């Protein structure tokens, strides 16, 4: 008799413990306290810099606000962190301030998970227009990006020389290649090395596809949707947009690039060029010290000569349930200050989101990072702000995959007409 009672008590205790573990222990809502969730780990440079910035906020703010950060490292594509945010939506336990990826701005703002922060952010003119655009939904600023990103065309100097490409032919921000010149260089490299000339990451069907390839569309004067984000038919299948996808198909068809690139093909000197992001600078510097390389800008459409590069990164936002808006706003503004941004962007070797921070960083970074900072400020283009962005970016990636299967889909315009209808389904009426 005693035994079974003890058993019941034990089970009940375990169950109670389990339930308590699930519940949220955020503590009482003291109005001076600000809670914050971030997607990075507190052991990596970005996390460490953020913790320092928050410590400074706690020391320096005059109102006695106390901010506390919880680090929820995301998995590869944003998994772990976003799962936690989604779960918190269900239980109504979002923090006051959170980080979110650029493309999520519209969905979060539309769902009223986050609220406008216009009035809390000071010195907005100093912030890059692409950052403002990324964080703006229906005319209001909802999120503040604290860093920028970009992509360039990395090239192997030795291989270029070997193939007879002169220094004067190298593309620069002042004199970018047109698509025709780009294809011509590819041809020469391919004929010399009997390998595809460039790895354009066409095996990556994630967000990377839109992020890295949409600049070709924008350079041609095309777009994914109309500016209001309500129409894709007539935009995604326009002549301009189609010309960019035609270029991608031609690049594959002519063997200048490949849909199944060799692993580390550029790093090991198999491909003479690679299209990739700012993050590669550190990898090449630290792990491939013998490789002589440089970075060039995106080639431009011969029809427009318009220079475009991709932009966007993670941002700070205030949740709709923030208990003390002033305190949360003050924290975001503090983290967006020159001092904080400089510290975190330098620590993480990323591009700055403020013009003034760019000036501070320029003398401290290497030649390639200087190129990226310049490219970002002069040719940067924000991604579209759309509520159903995940579906749109996937359709973009599917379209890239469709046109690169050129034997099956030789008619690019036909693919674009079909895919425009698919995107149209996902747009807000």
């Amino acid at each position, binding site marked *: 008799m005693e035994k079974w009672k003890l058993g019941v008590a034990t089970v009940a205790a375990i169950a109670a413990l389990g339930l308590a573990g699930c519940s949220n222990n955020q503590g009482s809502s003291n109005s001076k306290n600000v809670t914050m969730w971030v997607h990075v780990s507190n052991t990596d440079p970005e996390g460490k810099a953020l913790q320092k910035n928050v410590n400074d906020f706690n020391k320096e703010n005059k109102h006695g606000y106390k901010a506390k950060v919880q680090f929820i490292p995301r998995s590869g594509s944003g998994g772990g962190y976003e799962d936690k945010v989604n779960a918190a939506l269900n239980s109504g336990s979002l923090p006051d301030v959170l980080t979110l990826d650029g493309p999520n701005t519209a969905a979060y703002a539309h769902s009223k998970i986050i609220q406008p922060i216009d009035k809390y952010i000071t010195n907005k003119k100093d912030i890059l227009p692409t950052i403002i655009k990324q964080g703006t939904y229906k005319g209001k600023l909802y999120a503040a990006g604290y860093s920028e990103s970009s992509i360039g065309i990395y090239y192997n100097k030795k291989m270029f020389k070997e193939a007879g490409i002169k220094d004067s032919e190298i593309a620069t921000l002042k004199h970018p290649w047109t698509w025709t010149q780009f294809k011509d260089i590819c041809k020469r490299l391919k004929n010399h090395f009997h390998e595809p000339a460039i790895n354009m990451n066409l095996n990556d069907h994630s967000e990377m596809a839109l992020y890295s390839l949409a600049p070709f569309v924008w350079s041609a004067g095309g777009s994914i949707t109309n500016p209001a984000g309500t129409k894709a038919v007539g935009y995604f299948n326009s002549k301009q947009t189609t010309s960019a996808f035609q270029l991608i198909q031609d690049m594959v068809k002519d063997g200048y690039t490949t849909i*199944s690139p060799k692993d580390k093909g550029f790093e090991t000197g198999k491909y003479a060029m690679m299209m990739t992001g700012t993050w590669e600078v550190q990898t090449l510097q630290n792990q491939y010290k013998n490789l002589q390389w440089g970075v060039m800008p995106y080639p431009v459409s011969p029809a427009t000569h318009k220079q475009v590069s991709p932009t966007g990164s993670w941002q700070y936002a205030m949740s709709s349930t923030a208990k003390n808006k002033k305190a949360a706003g003050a924290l975001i503004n503090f983290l967006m200050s020159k001092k904080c941004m400089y510290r975190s962007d330098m620590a993480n070797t990323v591009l700055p989101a403020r013009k003034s921070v760019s000036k501070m960083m320029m003398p401290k970074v290497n030649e390639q990072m200087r190129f990226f900072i310049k490219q970002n400020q002069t040719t940067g283009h924000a991604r579209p702000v759309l509520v159903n962005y*995940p579906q749109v970016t996937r359709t973009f990636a599917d379209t890239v*995959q469709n046109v690169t299967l050129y034997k099956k889909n030789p008619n690019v315009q036909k693919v674009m007409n079909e895919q425009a209808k698919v995107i149209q389904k996902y747009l807000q009426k």
Partner: protein
Amino acid sequence: MQTKGIKRQIGWLYVLPAILILLTFLIIPFLMSFSYSFTNYNILTPWAKQYVGFTNYINTFKDPVFLQSLKNIAQFVIFIMPIQVGAALGLALIVNKKRPGNTFFKISFFAPQVVSLTVVSILWMYILNPDQGLLNGILGIFHIKPQPFLTSPKQAMFAIIGVSAWQGAGYQMLIFLAGLQNIPDSLYEAAELDGANSWQRFLHITLPMLKPTSMMILTTTFISAFNLVIQPMIMTQGGPQNATMTPIYYIYRTGFTDRQLGYASAMSVIYGIIIIIFTIIQRKITNAGGDENA
């Protein structure tokens, strides 16, 4: 009387953990997704979900990707069953004979099983790479031109079938091996005396004696084949052109990437029903086989 009551209560106590786990992770989630399937539940706006009747169910049958995923999984199930189970039986027969180095082969054949599916998938992406992969290198020796494998809508699913069979066969080999070792030697000896050759012995002794083991393996392979998700998720992201999209992967993507939990729930209810129907049919066939045997 009283002791009987206490005994009953203790009985409940013993099954309580199992009941709690089943309730928490199976029954309640199932009931929840059933109720969500009639709503427009968006993961970002859980408070704004509205009842939409059978809209999600009707859309499911009009969704070309979902229908394609059903076709794909049918293709996978039909091919994986004979390939994987056949390979497992073949391997078991190889290592069943006592010869030197047997343990090495047993471990080698079983090894893929202890590696996580994610790692297996990444490993095979290297092997199947059209430009530098090991497999095309081997084919090249035989003057077969390089195959596109994962980048071809026609070949991608077969590549995944091959990888899955390679990974899964080792475990089933062990079960077959146990079955083989339970067959009394006297049967083979008697058959040999009667002049049966090795093929006849396999056909008339080994296969019939392995029937219960085979049925068990067929059932588990069948059910697990329906849950295919990791290999396409890692190796092809469901492509090219949805050629390797599976229902579970599509449901996951719709729910958690596209945030349409209501619609994803409707698809999972439909897919759940499909699996239940096929499992019942399969059990009926298996039981019928069992009765014959008995």
